[in-house]
């Protein structure tokens, strides 16, 4: 089976690890070989969380520079920071709602201009799907559902060997019952947003 490599980057607390575990469950349900690794040293202290998911026949659990087929960023500056994982064929999906690093808040550094950020990514990669996932999550009734919105968008691209049904079934198994409806709604809104961007 062909290998597909996905990188997810997020700020601690954005639900990256849950999104990864949903995709893992979906792969398990669908009989797709999967390996993934995560780096979450001090995530709860505001750091960056990176997950690498390798679908198909490969043994490695990490993804080298330039090797990602798909990069999904839950925060725009973090998407740009992870651009070294991309090549000219990579599809990039990013949330456009920034979370200011405290270094910017205390005046040590300037947050990148969002229009320039998108232009840069667009110029270097095959495709950029960019939208405000935080707004869609709120629309779905769960402001913490940014991860589910982006799951919808990445599923829509069809790059991963997983169908929307697979992922939704995995969501039912892996996410809290009380949030399931809003999560499914968030997924659909993300799916549609990616369709419109296409």
């Amino acid at each position, binding site marked *: 089976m062909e290998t597909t490599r996905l990188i997810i980057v997020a700020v601690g607390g954005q639900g990256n690890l849950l999104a990864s575990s949903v995709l893992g469950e979906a792969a398990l349900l669908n009989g797709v070989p999967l390996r*993934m*690794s995560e780096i979450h040293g001090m995530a*709860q202290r505001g750091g960056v969380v990176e997950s690498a998911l390798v679908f198909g026949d490969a043994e*490695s*659990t990490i993804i080298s520079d330039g090797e990602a087929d798909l990069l999904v960023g839950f925060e725009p*500056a973090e998407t740009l920071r992870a651009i070294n994982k991309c090549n000219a064929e990579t599809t990039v999906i990013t949330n456009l709602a920034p979370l200011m690093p405290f270094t910017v808040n205390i005046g040590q550094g300037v947050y990148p201009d969002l229009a320039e950020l998108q232009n840069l990514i667009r110029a270097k990669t095959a495709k950029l799907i960019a939208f405000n996932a935080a707004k869609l999550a709120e629309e779905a009734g769960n402001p913490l559902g940014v991860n589910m919105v982006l799951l919808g968008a990445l599923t829509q691209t069809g790059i991963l060997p997983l169908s929307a049904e697979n992922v939704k079934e995995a969501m039912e198994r892996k996410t809290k019952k009380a949030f399931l409806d809003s999560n499914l709604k968030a997924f659909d809104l993300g799916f549609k947003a990616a369709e419109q961007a296409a």
Partner: protein
Amino acid sequence: MHKLLTDNPGEQMLLLGNEAIARGAIEAGVAFTSTYPGTPSSEISLQFFQMSQECDLYFEYSTNEKTAFEVAAAAANSNVRSMCMMKHVGLNVAADGLMTLAYIGVKAGMIVLTADDPFMFSSQNEQDNRIYARLAGLPMLEPSSIQDAKDMIPYAFDLSEKLQEPVIFRTTTRINHSSGIVKLGKIKPRVTKGNYTKDPLNHVPVPAVARKLHVKLLKNLDTAQGIAEKSEFNIVEGKGKWGIICNGVSYNYVRDAVTDLDIADSARVLRLGFSHPMPDTLILNFLKACEKVLIVEEGEPVMEEAVKAMAQEEGITLPIKGKGEGLLTRLYEFSPAQVENVIAGYFGVPYEPKEAVDLSDIPEIPQRPPTLCAGCSHRATYHEINKAVEELGVETIYPTDIGCYTLGLLPPLSTADFLVCMGSSAGTAGGFSQVTDKKVIAFIGDSTFFHSGIPGLINGVFNNHNFTLVILDNGITAMTGHQPHPGVDMKQFNMEGYGQVSIEAVVRAIGVPHVAVIKPNKVKKSIEAIKEAINFKGISVIISQEPCVLYAKALKLTKQRPFEVTDKCKNHRDCMNYLACPAFYVWNERIKIDPNLCTGCAVCAQICPENAILPLKKKKVPA
């Protein structure tokens, strides 16, 4: 029921490496487990902690790694299968016992798990603990995949019983924190009660006994080597003349490279999963079938040096390379592309790596380093220390220790100058105070104090050093994910049957002449108490008590009432310049407080010169 207790052999589960290891231990009938938490090993213990609340598995958070090792050693010598786990530097703490337990041995199987951290994702060094196997003369197993991680644990227990020796199980972060689909095996029943047979002439290593035991250890090593020669975890694949010897996660990168470079017909791969003692015959036969050999191992050239020595002794002269310029490095973790590139270069195969995008025009992206949480009491204590020091006009040195509070290193707090290892704050403080004229103020967390801070403090009292030790007591082992420690009241988890050790009582019993307990969220009072402690000549201790704000939130111990910056603000920015709490942000040149992040600690409100920071009037705005 805990998912790892599911007795459904053949079922496939998506597991984190650390879950797979815990599952492997359950399948092996482990009955006694102990740890001191440390990334990347912590989730193994979390599984045991959870499962021990549902079944007769014993688990404990021990005071430090040495104690975790000792309790497990006693259990294994009483015929109960035991396992202790720790991060790589934790094995340094347990090493004293490890070296001699190798002489004494065990009755039931015992695994000592070390989680190494190449690249130092969350560690202070990247020492290669494979060397401990050699130093102690103990067998070592190293998984390459998540399935391996599970399957090797029952094997390690059986091996330990066969040899009557503890077995070292060595992982790296990319095993602990990777996930994969794992096929479950059968669960062996647990034997939780054992019996200890007295055998002082083999169990008490006075010199005459130890001399005899060392002979036994070397014999055991020979036996172990014989087993390693035939181990199912030492695998040769392929029939080519290009040899690659590898271990751990490097094996995955080698396999992917062999496929990607399409050199399966030319390459021959030896993966050592049972890596110490090394299977000499297997390796020599491998070398004899090759024209040139590459050793792919992260960290130190452990296999490389051993293989070269074997070849020399056998008179085999083929090129054997591993570390070196244009080859592999002793630094950090490997990436698959790095390994593929070196393999291609060494064997002369064309390789076109996927070209990463050009990064030359990417603007500088502001860093997002981890920081003390919004409302973290360490920030308050550090600010109060800074204020007290400023008011007294003293020059300081700040030895610090290992925990969240190490993050005091960053400005504007800048309260970390020197750190070596767990517990070093108190010890190094004594040395600094002896040879400099600066005021030495050392910081240590509650869990670290119990772990190894106490001897340094006793040393200071006995040798009449002159420093202030600030014990940052947030009531939990915060950084590794909120594990309990001996100072924690376990009733708050609804857990019965635990004791509780008071830090203040310990400090007073040691005979510290000046002890103050402060509530760091009360700024003025705390500064006064700190000034008194700093002025005291000799050893003074400040215990700064306030629950970890993340933990308090999780346990719903606090009702958060956020604050806001009102119109009275004259933009002095003391709040930002002294505290820089992550709940602050700048909006239209003014400081604002994010009500979703503010925990209502009110520390900024107390330092605002205009008293402009007040409780937010309306109800907390939704996120």
